[in-house]
């Protein structure tokens, strides 16, 4: 048995040919494949091919205790793991009716925003690299690493934090942590002009990104686009504001949006979100010392914990868009069913396929990265 996509998908007419982008290809975010039918270097058709990162998460989670699943949830989307954790935990809390202490909620917001900053820095690097600009990636990774240092200090893990637990968070902040957060935020902010000079106001980049992967607002709504990609078409929608969770209602932040709906607009929205995230994180840092109290409400012994029967659908805004968990309990000690709705399930499949038709081969990778598609969310 040869791998199925090794063979040409169909016999193309003589003026057409097929090209596989991925799974092992630098123009693909992660382990994912995109099969193109090309005429010259114009794409006639694009077909997404997923499953390279399929682990059967939802199946695995049905076989593990509620608390054991904490460790597995962040692995669904690696660059931005915290929203995964938080939304799963929110679902469990909704099912159990747990009251999360306020301090824990603020800590979760801090994590979510730091994670968003890290994810955006990651995406900028990747996006720039698809256009041959590697320095952004080198800088972005180094600066993202500072955020990961904060995570390491707070949660004990650089990438997989496993810090949220139904009922709250696992530990309180270490001494002096908030100062270090503040310092890192200041540093990141001071770096923004450098990034602007290098990438965001770099005419070559602007020229490359403008008009690439353009979609109208109607198309975006039709295709189920969410998150920064939706906001780049002019719809100011953000789950944090419009379907608020945790303490986002108490926070002040703008929802940046753009009208153009192309790769450039999407990049700009993310760039502006970075500023907003820093702003939110600052508010948390300022507020946290005033919020005393526990970080976790009492929860039952994890080994003997059955969650009341019911179902919960919890949505959060990840760096990529609307992320949701549908968790069903039949009253047992393990979830009866979990279903994760990742934003990339739309972006990396339908949206990418549709945007690639008629696009140039040059722009495919850029389209994918500008959509910030995250293959593991598709594969699960």
């Amino acid at each position, binding site marked *: 048995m040869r791998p199925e996509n090794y063979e040409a998908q169909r016999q193309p007419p003589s003026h057409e040919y097929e090209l596989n982008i991925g799974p092992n290809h*630098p123009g693909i975010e992660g382990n994912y494949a995109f099969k193109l039918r090309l005429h010259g270097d114009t794409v006639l058709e694009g077909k997404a091919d997923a499953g390279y*990162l*399929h682990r*059967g998460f939802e199946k*695995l989670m049905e*076989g593990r205790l509620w608390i054991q699943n904490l460790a597995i949830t962040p692995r669904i989307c*690696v660059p931005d793991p915290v929203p995964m954790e938080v939304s799963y935990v929110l679902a469990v809390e909704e099912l159990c009716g747990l009251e999360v202490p306020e301090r824990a909620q603020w800590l979760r917001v801090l994590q979510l925003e730091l994670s968003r900053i890290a994810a955006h820095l990651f995406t900028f690097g990747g996006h720039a690299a698809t256009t041959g600009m590697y320095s952004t990636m080198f800088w972005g990774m*180094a600066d993202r690493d500072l955020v*990961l240092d904060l995570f390491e200090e707070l949660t004990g893990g650089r990438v997989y934090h496993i810090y949220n637990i139904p009922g709250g968070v696992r530990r309180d902040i270490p001494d002096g942590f908030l100062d270090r957060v503040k310092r890192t935020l200041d540093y990141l902010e001071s770096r923004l002009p450098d990034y602007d000079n290098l990438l965001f106001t770099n005419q070559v980049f602007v020229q490359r990104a403008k008009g690439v992967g353009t979609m109208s607002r109607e198309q975006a709504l039709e295709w189920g686009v969410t998150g920064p990609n939706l906001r780049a078409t002019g719809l100011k929608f953000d789950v944090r504001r419009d379907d608020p969770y945790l303490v986002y209602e108490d926070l002040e932040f703008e929802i940046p949006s753009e009208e153009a709906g192309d790769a450039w607009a999407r990049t700009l929205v993310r760039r502006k979100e970075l500023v907003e995230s820093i702003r939110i994180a600052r508010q948390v840092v300022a507020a946290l010392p005033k919020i005393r109290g526990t970080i976790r409400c009492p929860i039952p012994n994890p080994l003997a914990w059955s969650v009341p029967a019911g179902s919960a659908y919890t949505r959060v805004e990840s760096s990529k868009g609307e992320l949701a968990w549908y968790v069903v309990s039949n009253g047992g000690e393990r979830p009866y069913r979990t279903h994760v709705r990742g934003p990339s399930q739309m972006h990396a499949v339908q949206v990418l396929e549709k945007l690639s038709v008629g696009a140039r081969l040059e722009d495919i990778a850029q389209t994918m990265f500008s959509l910030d598609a995250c293959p593991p969310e598709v594969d699960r």
Partner: protein
Amino acid sequence: MTEVTKTPAAGDALPVKTGKRTNPLANVFDELVRFAQSRSLFMLHYCTGCGAIELPPAMTSRFDMERLGIQPMVSPRQADILLVTGYVSVKTLKRVILTYEQMNSPKYVIGICSCTVNGGMYWQSYATAKKLNDYMPVDIYIAGCMPRPEAVIAGLRGLIEDIRRGTADTWKDYYRRYDHYLGNQQRLFGEDWQTPTDVIAEARHYGLFGPGTLGERTALLERHQKPLEALEMKLDIPELMARRSGLGSKGRTEVK
């Protein structure tokens, strides 16, 4: 100049070329090549799993792998190291094997994260392979879920040391015990599994034939052999030429 006559039957002990060098200069040369090999490692940047998230930091400014002469390469032909970053789903595993076979030797496989060792988090998942070394020889493992960039670098430095000493030669194992690896691959992918690279022919060509190269599993391979158009762009191997054209080859290799 003898012709390659027939495929040896399974179990036939074939004399393996013993690379004995008597010329001291040649030894110096070998040493130099080995040193160069250890100082210049091209890493195939294939994100097979979640551990790949720690590779960009390791490659970029903060941890800067280029200090060790390691840089990412995009094509398996160019790469020396195959980093298997965490779990490999069965679907990916096929590609990993194809990739591995396409790489030029000496090639090194690094298994990162728990998942490559014993299944890791996904030990009960129907979709992921559990032990990487069933399917291809692995040179070095780096523990962690996922290992930090520093750990990755430490692992790579270990590999560099091994290459420098000349002990990192598991890639030969793939040729010498191809039957074993192929067997495990067939167990998972079905017995008609085949790859576009003719490992047996390569093994013979480069004198890496071992007692375990052929066996009952490779016999299955022959049986299910389909004409592969990919063979056209394959190795310049006299034996293959001979087999295909039916003409005598002017190959450089003698039957050993």
